[in-house]
């Protein structure tokens, strides 16, 4: 059993409140997608849930214990975090890049223990990166890099994966591939929390949507119930046609909503 619970979070950056009175609960088996307009506070909330940003007010608990009560490394072993557009700044090989995900479990000094090699090869195979094994990560295509980063995040077998816009910049095939893998991950008993702009894909793959608007969570529930033309008008300020139901929702944008 893994759960994250945020209660009454308020987070300011540069004196400006970004997150206001947000409470959110998520547990293993869920693929929770945060949706909302640019600047609504999705990234800030994800960073806070990952323990990278301390809230000004409120608490975030992982399995009932406040995040502030964990050591940095303890959190890092249990949850993986991927920022928006994760980068690799030195031309290290894909194999080495994935190995960096093991950092929280490695001793402070020395090389990579041989026991971990098998796990890295397993991840390379699972994420279709065996041909790129020795390639410099800085020369990968966007889709390959996204897969390598997800492999990096998951190599330590974390209970929780928090990924900020994991499919931004990916072509349809890679976007679908990534979301399928994330959904499978949730089905295998992990907790996956992402932010996403493609509402059709969000509705199709997420088990639950949380809609964030100007720092507040306005609604939260299964995609089929949440996504309505009304919501799109008020939160996203677009006129849209929402068709289908359950897992087959399709959102067609028509025009910016008249203000």
């Amino acid at each position, binding site marked *: 059993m893994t759960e994250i619970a945020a209660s009454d979070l308020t987070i300011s950056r540069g004196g400006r409140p970004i997150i206001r009175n947000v409470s959110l609960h998520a547990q293993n088996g869920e693929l929770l997608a945060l949706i909302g307009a640019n600047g609504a506070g999705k990234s800030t909330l994800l960073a806070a849930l990952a323990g990278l940003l301390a809230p000004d007010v409120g608490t975030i608990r992982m399995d009932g214990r406040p995040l502030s009560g964990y050591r*940095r490394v303890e959190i890092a072993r249990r949850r993986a975090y991927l920022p928006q557009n994760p980068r690799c700044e030195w031309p290290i090989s894909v194999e080495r890049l994935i190995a960096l995900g093991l950092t929280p479990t490695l001793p402070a000094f020395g090389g990579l223990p041989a026991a971990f090699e098998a796990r890295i090869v397993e991840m390379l195979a699972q994420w279709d990166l065996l041909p790129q094994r020795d390639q410099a990560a800085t020369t990968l295509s966007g889709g390959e890099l996204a897969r390598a980063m997800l492999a990096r995040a998951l190599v330590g077998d974390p209970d929780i994966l928090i990924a900020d816009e994991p499919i931004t910049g990916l072509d349809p095939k890679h976007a679908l591939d990534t979301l399928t893998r994330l959904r499978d991950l949730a089905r295998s008993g992990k907790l996956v929390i992402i932010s996403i702009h493609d509402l059709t894909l969000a509705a199709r793959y997420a088990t639950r949507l949380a809609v964030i608007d100007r720092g507040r969570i306005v609604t939260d529930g299964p995609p089929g119930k949440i996504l309505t033309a009304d919501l799109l008008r008020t939160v996203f300020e677009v006129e849209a046609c929402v068709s289908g139901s359950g897992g087959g929702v399709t959102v067609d944008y028509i025009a910016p909503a008249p203000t």
Partner: protein
Amino acid sequence: MVGGVLLVTLAALSVVSLLAGRVWVSPAEMWDGLFSSQATLASLIVTELRLPRTVLAIAVGGTLGLCGAVLQGLTRNPLAEPGLLGVSAGASLGAVIAIYFGISAYTTAAIPAFGLVGALGAMALTFALGRGGGTLSLVLAGAAVTGFMFALIQLALNLAPSLQAAYEIMTWLMGSLADRSWDHVLLAAPFIVIGCGMLAFTGRALDALSLGETQAESLGIDLQRLRLLALIGTAMAVGAGTSVTGTIGFIGQVGPHVVRPCVGYQPSRILLPAAIAGAVLLLGADVATRLIRFGPEMRLGVFTALLGTPFFFWLVVRLRKMSP
């Protein structure tokens, strides 16, 4: 593999360093000097002049190479060098103060001791200025401290009480290993050992930093602790080295670049080879200054700068080609 080649080169250079100089010593005399208790002129030259000089070249060169690799990893900038955080300039200012006020005339330990104090003072200033901010604040603080220290050095030159004092300051600033004794080694060694020990423990965090600061933090890395470790380690190791030798440029910048083509770009894997490469480069440069003879012995810092700048040109051209 590359480590082995570098170590063999270092050993060979060490032997040459014990033999070469104004007075050449034969290998047999060197052997006697090192391993027999008979005190001859040659044995004195080997044990009291050449050996401490060689040990210092290896220790200081190794320190510069290691520190360059750590700071390049910390800033993720291939142009970073050990003077980045202001400690080298602080060490120089300390030494200049010792010369300016004539304290260096009383004891040979004055220059390195004042240099160390200067380095630690510069470290404290850099820390106070850059505290709480990110790596960029630390680097900016280092630049500000360097500027301030050099302004004071120029003030000392400006107000130098005599031409002799100004000349002494100028030559010290050029950097040299000539006439360094065991006293210098003993004074610098503890700081170099502790400083390098601290720098050696940054490897894991520097690796994680390849993914940027946010991802590194998400992997459990304490970036504040890493910056502090790098700053204090640099102040102790490079501060002590600079206090003894004067300013020696380019070794710390070039060392990591020499080994990257062989060991790859992962920061932790570069640390040790970069240290050995730094030692090879500095010892080689010191031997070369003794072998190249036209007029007075060329100052080591001048020689490394002459050799290092063309390499720097090449690096700039290569980076320019890599950027779109």
